[in-house]
C-alpha cells in the first residue's frame, strides 16, 4: 500500500474570553445595623480596599482552599493574563470616552460608576470605594501598560502586584456576595463567614460561621456568570452568559447539576475553579466521536475516491460550549 496522504479537518468553536468568577456586587443598600462587611464607609485607596477585604487570616486554617484559589483566575480578577486589565482601558477609551453622555472625556474623568460595567464581576467590592480608587486603578493600569511598552520589569512587577492585590477572594464569596435574597435571609454580617453551617469560627476577625442558603447553589455563581445584558447599569454591558445558558438550555434538557458539582467537586479542583484551559475540565466537557470511511464517488463516468467523515460532538457541561 502506498503512503497515506494527510488531510486536516479543523472544527473551530469561536468564542469570547471569559473569567471564571463567582460573586457580584449588591445594588441594594445595606440596612442600618445589618450592613455587609464591606460597606462600613468607603475605601479611599486601593490599599484601603485591599485591607478591607483582607483574607489573609483565612489561610492559617484553610491553606488548601487558599492554594487552590491562588491558581484560579479569581485570584487575579482584574489583571487576568494582562488582557483583562487591558480590556478595562479599552472599555474606557473605545467605549466611555466615545459616548456623548458618559461624562468621560479623558481617563481622568473615570469614576466608580464608569468601571462597574467591568467591576460588577471582576471587582464587585469596588462599589465600596470612592472615585479615588477608580482613578488609582486606571492610573495603575496605565502605568503597567507603559512599563510593558518600555520593558521595565521592575515597574511591570510593581503595577502588576497592585492590580493583582484586587481580586475575588474569600470575603467576596463567603461574605459580601454570600446572601442574595437579603430581605429573606438578612444582610451579610461583618463578623461572619458564610458557608455550609452555623457555629463558632476560630478567627478573631470573623468569630461566627453562618449558613449561606445559596453557597452550594448555581445562583451564587450566576451573580457573575451572567444571563445577558446587565440592565441595572446606565449603559448595560455583557460578558458571561453561562448562567443564562444553564437556566434556559441545560435545565430544560433535564440537567440537574450545579456549577459547584462540576467545577469544584467532580473536577477535584475545589476552589481552583477552571474552564477550558484545564485538562480535567476539558476532558469532562466534551465527547468527540469520529467515524470515517472510504468510498468511491462517481462523477458521470469518472470514479473518484473520497473519505466521508462524520464528527459527533456531545456537550456534557451545564451550559453552551463555549460559554462562561
Amino acid at each position, binding site marked *: 500500500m502506498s503512503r497515506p*496522504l494527510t488531510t*486536516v*479537518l479543523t472544527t473551530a468553536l469561536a468564542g469570547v474570553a471569559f473569567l471564571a468568577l463567582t460573586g457580584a456586587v449588591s445594588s441594594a443598600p445595606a440596612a442600618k445595623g445589618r450592613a455587609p462587611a464591606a460597606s462600613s464607609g468607603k475605601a479611599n485607596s486601593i490599599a484601603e480596599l485591599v485591607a478591607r477585604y483582607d483574607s489573609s487570616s483565612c489561610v492559617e486554617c484553610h491553606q488548601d482552599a487558599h492554594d487552590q484559589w491562588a491558581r484560579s483566575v479569581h485570584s487575579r480578577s482584574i489583571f487576568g493574563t494582562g488582557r483583562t486589565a487591558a480590556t478595562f482601558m479599552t472599555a474606557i477609551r473605545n467605549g466611555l470616552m466615545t459616548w456623548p453622555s458618559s461624562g468621560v472625556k479623558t481617563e481622568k474623568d473615570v469614576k466608580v460608576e464608569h468601571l462597574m460595567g467591568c467591576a460588577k464581576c471582576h471587582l464587585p467590592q469596588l462599589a465600596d470605594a470612592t472615585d479615588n480608587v477608580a482613578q488609582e486603578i486606571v492610573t495603575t493600569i496605565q502605568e503597567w501598560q507603559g512599563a510593558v511598552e518600555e520593558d521595565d520589569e521592575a515597574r511591570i512587577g510593581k503595577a502588576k502586584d497592585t492590580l493583582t492585590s484586587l481580586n475575588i477572594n474569600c470575603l467576596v464569596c463567603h461574605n459580601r456576595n454570600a446572601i442574595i435574597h437579603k430581605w429573606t435571609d438578612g444582610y451579610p454580617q461583618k463578623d461572619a463567614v458564610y458557608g455550609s453551617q452555623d457555629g463558632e469560627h476560630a478567627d478573631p476577625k470573623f468569630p461566627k460561621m453562618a449558613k449561606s442558603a445559596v453557597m452550594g447553589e448555581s445562583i451564587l455563581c450566576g451573580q457573575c456568570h451572567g444571563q445577558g445584558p446587565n440592565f441595572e447599569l446606565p449603559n448595560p454591558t455583557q460578558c458571561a452568559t453561562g448562567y443564562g445558558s444553564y437556566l434556559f438550555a441545560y435545565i430544560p434538557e433535564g440537567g440537574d447539576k450545579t456549577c459547584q458539582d462540576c467545577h469544584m467537586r467532580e473536577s477535584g479542583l475545589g476552589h481552583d475553579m477552571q474552564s477550558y484551559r484545564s485538562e480535567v475540565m476539558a476532558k469532562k466537557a466534551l465527547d468527540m466521536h469520529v467515524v470515517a470511511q*472510504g468510498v468511491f464517488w462517481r462523477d458521470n463516468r469518472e470514479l473518484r475516491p*473520497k473519505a466521508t467523515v462524520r464528527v459527533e*460532538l456531545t456537550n456534557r457541561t451545564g451550559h*453552551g460550549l463555549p460559554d462562561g
Partner: protein
Amino acid sequence: MPVPQQLGRGNRMGRGPYEKSGLVQDSSLPPLRTVTSSYEIFFPFEDGENDEGDTVRTFPSESLAVEVKLWYLPYGTMDDDAFLWREEKRTVTVSMSGK
C-alpha cells in the same frame, strides 16, 4: 459561541464587553445534546498524459489520513490564543481495484 450583539441593536457583532448586549447568533454546542457534522474529502489526484496524449488521472495513494481537530478560538482567529480541545486521527483506505 454565543455571538454578542453590538449594543443590542442591528445585526452587527460586538467584541468588547462594553459594547456587548444581546445575541445575534449562537453557534455553541448546546448542553446535553449531540451535534453531528459531516465532511467529504476527495483523495488528491494527479493528471498526466499517456503515450496517445490523453489525460490520465491517477491517485497517488489508496489511503488518506484524516486528522480531526476541535479548536476553541477565544478571539475568533487561529493566530490569537487558539486552544486545541480535541484531536483524533483516522486512516481511510480504498481499493483502487474496486474490490
